[in-house]
């Protein structure tokens, strides 16, 4: 129990970082209605681009911006495969993801893992987040404001505010209309292909940014880091939806629910590990959890009938 409590701040920090990826998944899965599997590859791309640039002496923000752009490029590829080549979205994502494995390897100089030298104090100092700050900020080795929960939390709030603003603009509305009803969108003169590509780019940009943050947190980027990311993202989206759909109706709060979903997911994982589960079973567990939660609405519709609201004036 004590070890679980000790691990809690770390789990929350990691959850927050993955939450940014989950927000990216939310954009494709919930807004555009596409299950985009690119993220399994683009998550690692973000980390790979970050670790190489940062190790090469680049500014941490510049390296993160580069990671974001690299992720957007991955989204662009999937989007073009889908809209310009007529490949179904799921398959387009799988193709990009597969190709990205080689790209990520190439970016990382054909090494399966590249580390940041966090033992060097001035290197560590430059990072935005690190697992060393989790205890360090509490112990007083680092200022308290450097605690990852605070830093990534603020980062997430900033991103949510930005996205909330964007989806309220004409372009953002066009993107939402594309996902809601393509034929309506086209009848209003919206280029739905363009909107899909743009949505995939924004989504994968966020995913790669999350990858760059996790790379800093762990102090290394590993080639398999993104494997199963889509499932974690979906888990966060679904947990957030199940727990908060009755409470949160505002778009910004819905995004917040996704971030909280990711945190809860990591806390549950931590709890399961504390009980003594072999970590190798985690992926199976994640898959099962997501499968069950995705099945629930279907079962609900099939075996339980919602009460029909009666009364009220019948308008034309």
């Amino acid at each position: 129990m004590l070890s679980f409590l000790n691990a809690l701040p770390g789990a929350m920090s990691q959850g927050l970082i993955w939450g940014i990826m989950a927000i990216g998944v939310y954009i494709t899965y919930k807004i555009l209605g596409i299950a985009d599997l690119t993220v399994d590859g683009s998550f690692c791309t973000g980390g790979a681009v970050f670790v190489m640039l940062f190790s090469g002496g680049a500014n941490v923000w510049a390296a993160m911006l580069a990671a974001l752009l690299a992720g957007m490029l991955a989204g662009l590829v999937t989007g073009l495969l889908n809209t310009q080549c007529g490949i179904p979205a799921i398959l387009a994502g799988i193709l990009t993801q597969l190709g990205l494995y080689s790209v990520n390897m190439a970016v990382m100089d054909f090494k399966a893992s590249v580390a940041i030298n966090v033992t060097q104090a001035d290197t560590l100092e430059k990072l935005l987040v690190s697992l060393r700050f989790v205890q360090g900020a509490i112990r007083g080795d680092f200022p308290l404001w450097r605690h990852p929960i605070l830093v990534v939390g603020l980062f997430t709030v900033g991103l949510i505010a930005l996205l909330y603003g964007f989806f309220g603009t004409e372009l953002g509305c066009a993107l939402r209309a594309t996902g809601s009803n393509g034929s309506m969108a086209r009848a209003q003169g919206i280029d739905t292909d363009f909107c899909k590509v743009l949505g995939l780019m924004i989504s994968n940009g966020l995913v790669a940014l999350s990858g760059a943050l996790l790379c800093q947190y762990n102090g290394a980027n590993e080639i398999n880091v993104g494997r199963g990311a889509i499932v974690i993202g979906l888990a966060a989206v679904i947990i957030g939806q199940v727990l908060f759909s009755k409470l949160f109706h505002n778009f910004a709060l819905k995004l917040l629910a996704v971030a909280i979903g990711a945190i809860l997911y990591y806390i549950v994982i931590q709890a399961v590990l504390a009980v003594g589960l072999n970590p190798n079973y985690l992926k199976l567990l994640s898959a099962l959890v997501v499968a069950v939660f995705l099945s629930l609405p279907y079962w609900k519709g099939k075996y339980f009938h919602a009460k029909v609201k009666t009364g009220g004036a019948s308008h034309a």
Partner: protein
Amino acid sequence: MLEVKEIWKVFNAGTVNEKQALRGVSLTLKDGDFCTVIGGNGAGKSTLLNAVAGTWAVDGGSISIGGVDVTHLPDHKRAPYIGRVFQDPMLGTAPTMQILENLALAARRGQRRGLRWGVTKAEKEQYQEMLKNLDLGLEDRLTSKVGLLSGGQRQALTLLMASLKKPKLLLLDEHTAALDPKTAAKVLELSDRIVAESHLTTMMVTHNMKDAIQHGNRLIMMYDGKIVIDVSGEEKKKLTVPQLLELFSKVSGSDEADDKLLLS
């Protein structure tokens, strides 16, 4: 306003399901014309409308709207000129978005969409006023999701959306077919009102001969991918359903098609 010249369309070319849907259809509508389109199933009515809307490219011929050749433009690029209401009430609106947001999307039909706000405060008041005029009880539900509305409410909203930014051409594709008779009559009445108020050039496909005669100033009947009857003005005003049927059997040379038309 609309000039359709000799357009052709084949579906499933080269397969057993090959269907010659349009066979050299030509049609010219003057500014302010309200043309009703009738015909049996598979006659090519909806195909003609979709060809004009740009759902797919035609195999031959040309289409121009208000003097602009749109033959090779995809549907979203024709949107600046065209307002559409679909047969399926689900198709015309975005169900997961608010009534307000749907209207705001329609108000920007065919415009460049940038990073300005998607809905402005001034618009909100304007739409509230417009919805009040529709008398559907929607003016107090601006922030409701459109998915919660009935089919009739949705069609009425789609009509409003199609005319919010005055189109050069309004396309109504059996837009009352999925509604109950009472609601259908109400939506049809609303269509008449909107067309008259904004002086819109309109094409309305319908299955109902009586509606086709009662509404608009011109009537065309399609059969087997061609326009076989075209009446307008005084002649159309005096037209009755039996006359129309007689006219049709003369042109098509068969009686069984009459039954098909009457039954459908």
